[in-house]
């Protein structure tokens, strides 16, 4: 049993979701990053939650992927019992910015997804309340964190 918990997680995920994972790596102690197709994100997250106690969504980031016509979405999941932070990455096409929501399964993903929706315009399917969170009620300018949105300065 010389392998660390990070290696075990990587092995598990690779075994279970052989074809779905595009890339998986451990950068350093306590960090795992998984890149997967957008349709399998929920599946992998649920598997991690049930088997490895990744029960909290700590952060959700989204940005214009530097190369190509897609948005990258990164969820950070935290496992309390293993003390491992897992980055779950995916990319979705710019024409149809839709992704299955994690909120029905992770209550903590709620506001993170709302914010991502507001700032990047990504539709989370299955999310019950994607209302305004941070921007003014009468905001009509689009999605501030997209690269197409330019500041006036």
């Amino acid at each position, binding site marked *: 049993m010389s392998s660390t918990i990070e290696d075990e997680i990587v092995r598990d995920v690779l075994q279970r979701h052989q074809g779905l994972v595009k890339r998986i790596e451990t950068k350093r102690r306590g960090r795992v990053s998984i890149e997967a197709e957008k349709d399998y994100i929920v599946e992998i997250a649920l598997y991690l939650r049930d088997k490895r106690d990744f029960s909290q969504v700590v952060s959700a980031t989204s940005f214009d992927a530097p190369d190509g016509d897609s948005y990258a979405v990164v969820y950070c999941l935290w496992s309390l019992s293993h003390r491992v932070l897992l980055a779950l990455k995916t990319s979705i096409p710019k024409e149809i910015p839709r992704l299955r929501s994690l909120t029905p399964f992770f209550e903590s993903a709620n506001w993170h997804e709302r914010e991502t929706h507001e700032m990047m315009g990504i539709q989370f399917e299955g999310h019950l309340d994607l*209302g305004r969170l941070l921007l*003014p*009620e*009468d905001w009509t300018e689009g999605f*501030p964190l997209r690269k197409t*949105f330019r500041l*006036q300065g």
Partner: protein
Amino acid sequence: MRRNSYRRRTHAIWHSILSICDFLHHLRRLHNVHTDLCNGFHLSGESTPPSDNCFPRGGGRRGSMLVAIDGRSTMTINRVKCMAPVRKLLDWGRLSSLWPVHIATGCCSPEEMALVSPRYDVERFGVLPLPSLRQCDLLIVLGLVTHKMAKRLKLIYEQMPEPKYVMAVGACAVSGGLFWDSYSVVKGIDKVLPVDVYVPGCPPRPEAFIQGIRLLQQKIRRERKN
């Protein structure tokens, strides 16, 4: 393309909430300025609750004045041609009892806490923070004001009784400061409210706050002479 839309938005805001602020700028208090700026201001969007009677909203439903039936927010006691000593007394009372309203808009609010704390104790000058805006005469705008807050700030200013004073504290309240190119920050609250004293700094030290209050007191003392 985006620049255009930004300009359009700014115009929209200017028309909806900042309608007459431009010429309010160089006017002083007690010059019979009607400060009812709230006409045409509506809250919209799903997250807005139905308006309630907590504080009347909008220009039409503004609380009526006791002394000025025509809606002017001036006071009879100032219109009465009273003797110089009495006027002096009134001014003295006003400048030595400035009650600031509790409204935190940005990151300068910890410094306001320091201002009332034992080391800087601003109650020495008669500045006593009060919870309700109905009793207050000084609006200290602490730091940046977002577009979302600007509407509420105007509402708060509206509901304070005359005579009232505004102090812009922090670089953001003066000019937008560090967030000068942000999409959601108002570049200087003088676009929204008539400001009496500017206190620059990011955040200003409490000493600067106190200087601002002293300057305001000087201003009140001079106001009547002009």
